[in-house]
Every structure is written in C-alpha cells, then in structure tokens.
C-alpha cells in the first residue's frame, strides 16, 4: 500500500513528503497533515502535501529499510526506529537527541477495554492473569501495541513483587496463557475483541480504546483504567538519507517541528494521545486522559537495545514463554 502511495507522487511541481506511520494513527495524521499544509502555505506560500502510509509498526520500519522514500517516520515504539538506524543507516544512531523530549511529541499508555458492566470485574493487571479471564492482545513479535502490552504487564509485576525478574517473567507467562488469539496487529485484536466477541479484556493503546467506544458504541464496552501502567513512547524521526536525496529536508524538518506546536498538541489531545504540552490542549480533551501512575520501561530494563533483545528477539522472553506454555 505504501508503495502505491509513494509512487503516485514525484511528478508534481509541488512538494510532497511521506510520513510512514503505524496502524492506529490514520485519523490523527489526516488532521495533522491538513493543518501543517495550511500553516506552511500561509508561512511560505508553497503548497506541500503530506502523505501518510499506515501499517504495523515493525512492517513499516521494514518498508523504510527496503527503500520506501519516507521523509519522516512516526512509529509505535523506539526499537523500530533503532532498527532502521542500525540496519539501513538512513537515520543517524543518535536520532533521539535530535528532537525535543527524545523525539516524542506525544506519549500514550495502555488501558483495558472490557465488555459493558465489566462482568469479570477487571480492575488491575492482576486480573488479567486469573484463570477464568480471556485476554485479547496482538503478537508482540509483529505489533508495537503488542509489545507495549507485554512490557506493561511485566513492569507491573516487577514493581509489585519487589523488583523480582523471575516473578515478573512468570506473571507474564501466566497472562499469555489466557490469550486465545494472537493477531498480527493492534487493529486485528480490536476486531477480534469488538466484532467477533472473543475475550473478556483487551489491553490496548489508550487512543485505540476511545476509538472503539466511538466506533462500536459506548453501550457495548467500558474503559477500565488500571492504577499503574506503562509510559508508552511512540517516537518520530527524520529519515536523513531520504530527505537529502529528495531535497525535502526543509519541509520535513518543519513538519516534525510542527508536531511540537500548540496547534498540533491540541490535535493530539483531541485524538486521545497524551500531549507533552498539556497547556496547549483543550481542558475537556485533557479531562478524558486520567492521571495514572506511569512507569518507564527503560528505568526497569535498561536501553531499548536490551529491551528488544531480552524480550522479543529470537529466543527472547516471549519465545521462552510460548515454548514453556505449550
């Protein structure tokens, strides 16, 4: 899909930049891109079109490595941008230092979506590992959202059990025994849970949970906010090698800077992402994002390199748990 989007451009006199993004941001970037085009036109008189390609975060990273002419990437998890930097060198290794707040114009977290009235009384991460609860979550190997869910559950157990790694691993193993379906992406899990009626709880991106309420009706599902959850970091970065080749560095850099502007920050909040400048957002949007105790996974497990390797690479914790659980 991204290939088609990319190849339709180029022949026009106007500038076009391509934002390769992850799955649930379709609605968000439609609005952001229109707003940026308007501001850029007013400021420079130049017409710029921002195209966005969406898909699973890891798959999107791979299309950039394989040569999609992305100007910027806005992905679901830092390790996917690290992979582009490491495997293709199209992004410098220190990309997290190039933009404010470690390349995070907004953050998010993981909350629970349950069936109306919460029949299984799910309140906290503990409840997800109970034997009679079915949990729907995407495969952490293929989905960034799936990785955040995995890390959130791990971090919760680690903090609860006095920072004991073994106990945290066991808890996550217990939780994944309750998973009857592993979809490849967050949207797939949403469909399995909301449309197919499978499972009791869907741990998911906060913004995705709100989207389900809006799409499927508030009378079918409830959002349960756990007392603690993870500080989810969907970062953005400039693809240096591509913008230099295409001559779009000026516009692409301005686009990334725009994400930190008050206008974009308000749009993030409107779409249920957590803006880093809370003062720019509308109070009623902020009111929907409850205060949760958020932990940063780097504080518990070290660098993203280590996190990726220990949990999700071949032979990592997820592989060990699925082997033990069979």
């Amino acid at each position, binding site marked *: 899909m991204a290939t088609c989007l990319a190849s339709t451009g180029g022949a026009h006199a106007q500038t076009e930049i391509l934002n390769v993004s992850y799955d649930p941001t379709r609605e968000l970037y439609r609005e952001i891109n229109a707003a940026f085009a308007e501001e850029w036109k007013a400021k420079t008189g130049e017409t710029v079109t921002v195209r966005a390609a969406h898909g699973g975060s890891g798959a999107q990273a791979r299309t950039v490595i394989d040569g999609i002419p992305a100007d910027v990437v806005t992905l679901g998890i830092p390790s996917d941008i690290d992979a582009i930097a490491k495997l293709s060198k199209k992004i410098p290794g220190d990309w997290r230092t190039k933009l404010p707040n470690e390349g995070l114009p907004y953050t998010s977290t993981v909350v629970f979506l349950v069936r109306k009235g919460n029949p299984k009384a799910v309140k906290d991460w503990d409840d997800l590992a109970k034997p009679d609860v079915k949990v729907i979550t995407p495969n952490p190997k293929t989905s960034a959202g799936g990785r955040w869910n995995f890390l959130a559950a791990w971090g919760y157990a680690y903090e609860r059990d006095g920072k004991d790694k073994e106990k945290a691993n066991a808890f996550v193993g217990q939780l994944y025994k309750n*998973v*009857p379906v592993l979809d490849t992406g967050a949207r797939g899990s949403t469909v399995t849970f909301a*449309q*197919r*009626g499978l499972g009791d709880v869907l741990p998911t991106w906060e913004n995705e949970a709100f989207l389900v309420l809006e799409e499927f009706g508030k009378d079918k599902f409830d959002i349960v906010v756990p007392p603690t959850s993870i500080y989810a970091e969907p970062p953005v970065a400039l693809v240096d090698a591509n913008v230099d080749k295409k001559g779009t560095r000026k516009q692409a850099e301005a686009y990334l800077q725009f994400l930190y502007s008050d206008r974009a920050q308000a749009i993030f909040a409107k779409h249920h992402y957590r803006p880093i400048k809370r003062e720019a957002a509308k109070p009623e949007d902020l009111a929907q994002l409850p205060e949760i105790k958020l932990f940063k996974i780097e504080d518990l497990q070290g660098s993203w390199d280590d996190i990726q390797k220990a949990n999700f690479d071949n032979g990592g914790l997820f592989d060990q748990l699925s082997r033990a659980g069979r």
Partner: protein
Amino acid sequence: MVEPVNPRLRFRQRSVIPGFGLTLGYTLTCLGLVVLLPLATLVVKASGLGFSGIWDVATDPRVASALRVSFGVSLLAALTASVFGGIVAWVLTRYDFPGRKLADAVVDLPFALPTAVAGIALASLYAPNGLVGAQLAKIGIEAAYTPAGIFIAMVFIGLPFAVRTVQPLIAEIDKEVEEASAILGASRITTLLRVVLPPLIPAVLTGFALAFARGVGEYGSIIFIAGNLPYVSEIAPLLIVIKLSEFDYAGASAIAVIMLGISFVTLLAINLIQAWSRRRFGYV
C-alpha cells in the same frame, strides 16, 4: 553450399508449426525472470546461514510445529476438497436442475475473492458469536481460532481447484460405457468403482495437488481465523512474516526454502503417482 544435416544429430524434430525457437526462447525468458530468478534469490538469501543454519531453523521446535500445521492441515484440507469437489463436479455436470449455471459460477468465487475478504467472512461466520460458530459452540466444538479454522479456510480456497480439474473429464465420459457395463451385468457400485472413477483419478490428483499447494501457500485468509498461537495454530507463512518483523531476513528465507523443498518433493510424488495412474488407466 548447405550440407544436408544428418537428422539423427539434430537437436530437435522439425515441426510443421513454425516459430519453435522464438517461443521456446520466450518461454525460458519468462520462466527465468518470473519463477526461477526469485526462487534463486531466496536460496541465495537463505544460504547466508549455511546448510547447518537452515537445519537449525528447520529443527527449531516452533518452526517444526508451524511446518507440521501447515503441511498436515493442507493435506487434510486437500483430501476433503478433492472428495467434496469431485461430488460437486459430478452433480454440476451430470444432472440438470434449475440454478445449475448459477451454482457452477459460484464455485469460482473463492478464486476471485481477495483472500483477506474470505478470511474475514469465514471468521465472522465461525466465531463463537457467528452464525455457524454459535451452533457449533452449543455442541462443544470450537472452529474459529483453532487448527480447525485453518482447515476450513484451506478447504474453502482449495475447493474450486478440485472441482474445475475434474469437471471436463466427467463431461467427457461416454454414457455408452456405463450402459455397456450395466448390460454386461455389473452392479451400479461396480460400474462406479471400476468404470467411471478410474479414468478420473489423474484429474483428481491434479486437483488435489493444486489444492494442497494453494493451502500450503495461503496466508491472507488463514491469519484471520487461525488464532495464530505458537505451537498450536501458527502456520509457516505467518512465521515467515514474524521473522521478517524481527528483521531476520535469513531466517525468513530459510523457512521459505524449507517450505519450497517440502512442496517440491510432495508435488514430485504426486506427479509420479499421476504418471503411474495414467499408464495404468490410460486416458488423458
């Protein structure tokens, strides 16, 4: 002066139809570019691991289990599709009934339908809250999100192959042969088993091989209905996608090469049986 060429030394027999050289060249170029080159690239990518590396991938318990699921279920599904496809083909060619043309056209739908659409349709039908799934759930059968779901999807996409390969042969069977068999005193069952079915066997095998190959390679429709649990309902093509998301190109190619190898051996075996059955039963 042109020497007359000894016909025995000639590379090929002169054909009445001209253009052999041109068309052969064209065929080889197409085959090379479209089929052999990608396969060669695959092998080159995988060869980065070396033979022992590929062996390690093949014997990894998770890969082995995915391969078992993929090949085992496709085998079962192809068998089922062949049996029921044969019956469908028989009914569509031998009987005339209102709506026959329509039913005949419907058989091709799985060919034309995007596989993802098929997967979504099957999943919503067989899910515990779906039309069929709810009934099955009452008697304690879980279809969607188990290996049974994979089986259903593979039968669905394999059925048209089984029907379409057998249909022309059934149409060709002379009614007189059956009549002769009856006149000579054979019972209806004997006529069916010894007169009607044997000449169909090569075509049934072709349909079986096509349905099997299609099932092994299928990804789009299956992931929607399989459940995708490691060691349970994870198919090999999904494992390839997972390897790719780990940026493990060599590992992904290794699984692909293993699948290619198994498929090649299976199809070769089916072809040999087919050649044997052609000699045995004549026809086609």
